[in-house]
């Protein structure tokens, strides 16, 4: 991608339980937070991106609620947790095409306060065409991911201990994040001792359920150069969708194989160039499959790759999710893509917590998987560069 689009402002909502705060208010909190970080105001925004959880009709209601009066570009693509990698990519493309100069991307939801559980707001699974032919099973994502994990174990010898290492790494990082939902440092034994929720996944193999959200401000290069924050360039992006294909799915390979390849090709880079990675961690198994698919290790080697602290900053070869990730820090609205990008930007700026900041942070990656690895999902990869 040419030198066109930069992330100029970021904000992560500090709440993890939004009792008493409406979803619209949360959107406003994160929007103003990110604009303030960028040093911009509402009147600068001419592009708006949000997902289906934004209350009201598409992006209309939030645009009016926030007070966005200069919009000439809007995108309400919903791909679950990866929506925000997709929005980032689409914002960069819109800026490159001259369709907007300052894009605001917001995510905010309150499934905890709203007692909605691990469900996406604003989408209606009861209308999917295959509904009459699905087995009578409650629509909990962890059931599908448990099948991914078991198949991965069967095909490649991945173990529960290796899965647990992903959580252990996240917990090591989360101890330094005062806002993290879970801050206790865990051992592999702790994770294995947590109750089985969907065999072979333990409770600690699952991400947290949180309220809150986050926002990004993406701007044209010329604007970025006038702002005070360290400029973070969007160097490459890729998106890819995968589904059951009439019953020909491979549970151990995600659409990340393609989204990663596209992003690396666009950036002119390879996985070896990446100093830090935010890897979507709805479940521990998600990280293992994605690391393989992105090329950080060979297919089937993900379990070995994550073991023994290899994802822990200051310890391992590839620090991952240094904010504590979705597994320990935050998974607002059951969509972890936003927080993945936020921590990647912090690392890229050199503004992560000193205990987890990677020393060389010129090139970082954020990868998301929205939907279910076991069925329909959208993978999206973004590669960011410190300028």
């Amino acid at each position, binding site marked *: 991608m040419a030198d066109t689009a930069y992330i100029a402002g970021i904000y992560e909502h500090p709440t993890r339980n939004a009792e008493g705060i409406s979803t619209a208010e949360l959107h406003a909190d994160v929007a103003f937070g990110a604009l303030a970080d960028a040093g911009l105001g509402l009147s600068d925004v001419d592009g708006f991106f949000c997902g289906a959880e934004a209350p009201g009709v598409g992006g209309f209601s939030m645009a009016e609620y926030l007070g966005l009066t200069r919009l000439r570009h809007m995108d309400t693509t919903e791909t679950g947790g990866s929506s925000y990698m997709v929005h980032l990519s689409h914002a960069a493309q819109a800026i490159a095409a001259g369709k907007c100069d300052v894009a605001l991307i917001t995510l905010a939801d309150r499934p905890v306060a709203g007692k909605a559980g691990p469900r996406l707001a604003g989408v209606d699974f009861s209308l999917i065409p295959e509904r009459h032919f699905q087995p009578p099973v409650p629509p909990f994502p962890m059931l599908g991911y448990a099948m991914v994990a078991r198949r991965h174990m069967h095909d490649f010898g991945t173990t529960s201990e290796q899965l647990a290492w992903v959580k252990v790494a996240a917990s090591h990082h989360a101890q330094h994040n005062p806002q993290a939902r879970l801050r206790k440092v865990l051992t592999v034994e702790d994770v294995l001792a947590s109750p089985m929720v*969907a065999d072979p996944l333990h409770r600690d193999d699952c991400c947290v359920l949180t309220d809150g959200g986050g926002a990004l401000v993406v701007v044209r290069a010329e604007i970025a150069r006038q702002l005070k924050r360290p400029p973070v360039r969007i160097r490459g992006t890729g998106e890819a969708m995968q589904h059951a294909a009439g019953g020909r799915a491979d549970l151990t390979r995600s659409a990340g194989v393609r989204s990663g390849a596209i992003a690396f090709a666009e950036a002119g880079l390879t996985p070896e160039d990446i100093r830090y990675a935010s890897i979507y961690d709805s479940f521990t198994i998600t990280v293992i499959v994605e690391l393989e698919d992105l090329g950080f290790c060979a297919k089937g080697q993900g379990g070995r790759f994550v073991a023994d602290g290899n994802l822990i900053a200051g310890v391992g070869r590839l620090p991952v999710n240094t904010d504590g990730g979705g597994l320990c820090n935050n998974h607002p609205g059951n969509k972890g893509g936003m927080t993945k990008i936020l921590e990647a930007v912090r690392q890229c700026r050199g503004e992560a917590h000193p205990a987890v900041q990677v020393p060389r942070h010129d090139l970082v990656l954020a990868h998301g998987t929205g939907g279910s690895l076991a069925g329909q999902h959208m993978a999206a990869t973004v590669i960011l560069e410190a300028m």
Partner: protein
Amino acid sequence: MSGHDTQPREAALLAEYQAAAEAGILLLRACQSCGEAHVYPRPHCPLCGHRGTEWRKASGAATLYSYTTSPMLPPATHYAMVTLAEGPTMPTIIVQSDFEALEIGQPMTLRFTKGPKGAPVPAFVAPASLRAEAYAARVIAEADAVPPGEAPALAQVAVIGGGTMGQGLVSACLIAGLSAVLVDRAHEALERARSVIAANVAQAIDKGKARPAAAACLDALVCTTDMAAISRADVVIEAVYEAMALKQEVMAQADRFARPGAVLGTNTSTLDIDAIARATTRPGAVVGLHFFSPAHIMKLLEIVRGTATEPATLAAARALGDRLRKTSVTVGNAFGFVGNRLMIAREHHAAQLLLAGALPQEVDAFQTGFGLPMGTFTLQDMAGGIELAYRQRQDTGRTDWLIDRLFKAGRTGLKSGKGYYRYEPGSRKPIPDPEVEALIREWSAAEGVTRRPIPPAEMHDRLILPMLNEGFKLLEEGIADRPEDVDTVWLRGYGWPAWRGGPMYYAQQKGLGAILDRLTALQAQEGEAFRPAALLQSMVAEGRALFAPSPDAA
């Protein structure tokens, strides 16, 4: 959110798909151009884009692609993906299969099950379940196929005691076209009994389950307080209150009036057959006839052999069982006979689990998840078990911390609207009750037990293994003649899931050595209630199998 989605074409496909499912057929949709099958029906081919597809019947053969289980799933259900022989991999559920025995790549067989809305949904079962079911069907067929021998003619049955069991027994006889006499000491009891019996028989006739003579037999039914009326009966069965002195007195009277050669049966569930036999002048003719309630419905008959019971008496009892279309199993005379011995072991340990940290709903959920029709505490509430346990103990002076308090709080079960659970008026649905939970916590505190969550694997070991252990003891004591008999009793009378083959079959599949190890560990940890049966120990030591030949041999 709402849709505007009427999909007339897809509605028609759905109707055809569901009609096939009703007939046990899984339909796939296949492309008329590329020939590939896809999982959920669409009018076009999602693989090549051709707009023309047709039905293709799935063979039902598949291999397991991946699977999981979770407390969020319905009991005894696992979520899975299977690869059909026709190509596609589909999400589905696995039913009637032991989760531990599943393995990726193993063959699976289609079996429709009832979905939450009552319509059939495709599900799959594991080969081990099919083998267990085949075994279960075989032992029951064997039990039913014992040749009659020289059974005496059977025309009339007399029942003494017109309560719950008496009513069921008379109903069963009439439905089978036998003439019957009912004796009770109370006229009201007889009147009540007659109307219940008439309703039972009418229902069986309606359902086409009665012999042609049933209606005439009902008309001829004699209900009387006069014991002399039993004098022409071929079999006399007493079903009076469960008290030894009363039973002995009633049997002595029956002895006086019954014709020579008649069988004197007792329906006792807990009393010593020999002691009852001693009250008569013909102990050789006395036999336990342990029917289950409701006796005209339940399929099992435990024929209890006393020390003096003569072969001819056993043959006559057997003939009665055959005539009533029961599965008869002859067992020895010991407290609980065969079926209740396993039940008592389970109930004892279920209570211990409450003390250790579990709640009634958790213990029950484990049991239904295992495949049993009902959990301990739901069953106790339904059958009035709290009151029964309380009353039975009163002359012994023994106490039971929890049951005594439940009883005194008026928590006697479903009938009183509260027991281990509470019940909404008119509903039989058990609802967990914080009051009971508080009581259980108090109990643990009183016993100095630190409560902890009990994982399902531990529930399995502490509820199921003692039942298996009890089975070994019954074999060792000669109360059960063969492991197949224990299995038949629990399959037929207690709802042991056929796909687990029976308790002893299950023990064999789990491995006797593994069971011995677990019981030994539990004995060390929890006490003597887990002491492994001597027979189990010697079989493991000598490497002997429980079944010879293998239970899966055709």
